[in-house]
């Protein structure tokens, strides 16, 4: 009996599903979109003409786990290429720490395999549920930006599949310009199939963490300056609703990987993952409840504390609650992350925080961090030297949009920028100011690729 499947399965053409799907949304739950979802199954699959026959006029966008907050991972009324099944490891060199993996693997899956072997990802964001492809396409940063730069700084090579069917291995040696366009390229240069990443050596999964309360923004800068050369990881949580003398008070976290071998024997507390069961009713989210939460959070942290914690609660505290985004109700929320020049007590960040504190909007989770001076490798990478502020703002419609627009004006004025991976509302003009490099990017964009974000800002 002869096999009916002569074509190797791994090279079958990518096929586009005939169903419009509303299950793929972004983490901010705004905007709501519908798209055709076409899952990729193998890294050898072809992007052939037959893939594109059925919908010649629609555009494509790779979709990992939808952990971008806004619409940069969405492609409304067009096609999403699901990378969930591109979840195979390819090689781990235990001598050099070079890891080769498919792009649809999440950081969680990667960490679970490499940590027991004494390796860690060079950069991790605030959630481990993002994919490797997403980490590259958004050139993510983490609490160690001041020493390690962005995720893209550690990508040695990757393979890019374009809609014309061509494949390119991009590295420091070949197609370097393509590598620079794809890092931070928002998935618009083609599909990242796999990447090679240089890992970081660790001894154990534990972090020695110090927690310090700062009673105003100036104190934050002091802690930050003092910590950046002694601690690999630093970040501040801020009470964005306190004003006057308390403006910018918060809690500073800093930590290093524990270097003691014996620590490997510390017992990991059994984590109980909780799930936020439903969308919170909107009336629960108001300035009063947010004020109460922020005040409580500030005061429940001791003024100084040292402890040893597992890497998961240290890096990914919110991952302990599935669907925490439902806290913001059905209307969803905006995350606003900007970077502005770091000029000590003259930093424009003071003005931005004050404007927000007085605006009447609130934020549960406000994060502040100073970026290091390393140059981000991507043409459209977000991080640059300065201080970065992240606000989680419930979507209250026009009022919210208006105030974020005011913040945009301030960021534009001081030569800062806003992070596309978090954005669902910046204007064309703002984008132009934030990313003057965009014309240089255009040449590398796949003509058949687009996103809701891209159509909005260009």
């Amino acid at each position, binding site marked *: *009996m002869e096999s009916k499947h002569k074509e*190797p*399965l*791994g090279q079958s053409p990518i096929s586009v599903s005939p169903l419009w*799907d509303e299950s793929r949304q972004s983490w901010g739950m705004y905007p709501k979109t519908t798209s055709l979802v076409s*899952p990729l199954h*193998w890294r*050898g699959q072809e992007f052939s003409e037959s893939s594109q026959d059925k919908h010649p006029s629609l555009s494509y966008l790779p979709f990992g786990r939808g952990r971008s907050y806004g619409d940069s991972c969405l492609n409304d009324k067009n096609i999403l290429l699901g990378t969930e099944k591109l979840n195979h490891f*390819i090689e781990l060199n235990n001598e050099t720490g070079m890891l080769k993996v498919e792009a649809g693997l999440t950081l969680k899956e990667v960490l679970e*395999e490499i940590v027991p072997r004494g390796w860690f990802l060079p950069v991790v964001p605030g959630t481990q549920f993002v994919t490797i492809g997403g980490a590259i396409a958004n050139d993510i940063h983490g609490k160690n930006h001041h020493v390690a730069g962005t995720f893209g700084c550690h990508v040695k090579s990757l393979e890019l599949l374009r809609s014309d069917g061509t494949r390119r291995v991009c590295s420091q040696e070949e197609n370097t310009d393509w590598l620079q366009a794809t890092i931070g390229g928002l998935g618009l240069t083609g599909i990242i199939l796999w990447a090679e990443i240089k890992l970081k050596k660790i001894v154990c999964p534990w972090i020695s963490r110090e927690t310090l309360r700062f009673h105003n923004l100036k104190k934050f800068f002091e802690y930050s300056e003092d910590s950046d050369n002694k601690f690999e990881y630093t970040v501040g949580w801020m009470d964005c609703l306190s004003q006057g003398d308390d403006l910018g008070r918060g809690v500073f976290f800093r930590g290093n990987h524990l270097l003691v071998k014996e620590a490997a024997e510390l017992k990991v507390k059994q984590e109980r993952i909780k799930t936020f069961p439903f969308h919170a009713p909107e009336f629960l989210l108001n300035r009063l409840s947010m004020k109460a939460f922020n005040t409580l959070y500030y005061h429940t942290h001791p003024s100084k504390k040292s402890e040893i914690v597992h890497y998961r609660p240290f890096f990914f505290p919110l991952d302990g609650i599935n669907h925490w985004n439902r806290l913001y109700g059905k209307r969803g929320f905006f995350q606003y992350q900007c970077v502005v020049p770091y000029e000590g007590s003259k930093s424009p960040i003071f003005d931005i925080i004050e404007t927000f504190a007085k605006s009447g909007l609130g934020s549960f989770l406000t994060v502040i961090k100073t970026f290091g001076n390393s140059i981000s490798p991507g043409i459209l990478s977000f991080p640059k030297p300065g201080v970065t502020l992240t606000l989680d703002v419930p979507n209250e419609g026009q009022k919210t949009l208006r105030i974020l627009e005011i913040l945009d004006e301030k960021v534009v004025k001081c030569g800062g920028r806003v992070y596309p991976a978090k954005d669902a509302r910046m204007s064309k003009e703002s984008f132009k100011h934030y990313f003057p490099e965009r014309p240089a990017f255009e040449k590398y964009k796949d003509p058949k690729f687009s996103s809701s974000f891209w159509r909005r800002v260009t």
Partner: protein
Amino acid sequence: MKLLIFGATSAIAQSVAKKVAHEGGELFLVGRHQDTLKIIAQDLVVRGAKKVGEIAADLTFREQYSEWVESAAKFMKGIDVVLIAHGVLGDQKQLEQNSDNAFDLINVNFISAALLAEASAHYFEIEKKGTIAVIGSVAGDRGRQSNYYYGAAKGGLEIFLQGLRNRLFPMGIHVLTIKPGFVSTPMTAHLKKNVMFASPDSVANGILKGIAKKRDVVYLPCFWAIIMGIIKSIPESIFKRLKL
């Protein structure tokens, strides 16, 4: 665990294999396509598998069944568990019209799976231990107009496994019938997803638990036991009028 998998490229099989690899197990993969087996084998090695072997072959080549089991046993120096995971959903309307396709579907889903289980049984009978885990389906619980070829094949397979279990029980050999409901896999890529769909990962956890606890039949997720209990209890005189 020393695990031999037939249909190793299936999404559920891959999820099971990853978990076994993570625990440092040994695996032997049989599947149709060399290229995709290679991708999976590489992945399992990085995830911690002590050893991964593979054979690319058409699973309807029944002359070779005992050979494959022998090769796996030789490669891993023994087998603890055989997982039979291959299957084809087919298009019911097309199967009604084309008897060649209908024959192939029953051949793959029933005959090949049953005879692979038998070939595995021959090996385990000598060893006096082992587990044969076979993926059936809730569709095998009752014939419905929307997929009775697939359902009949899986239902036949279940009855075959009942008999095999009955025969092997005195020898201490464990036979596990796995009955998943809807699972988000390439097999169901064309169906609209809803809350009834389980992830291959959670199904894999259920399979490994069923193996460890030496269960006879597991529905995955377990709520399907209730749903199918109700569906099975509907009298045929009423059932024949339903659009299911």
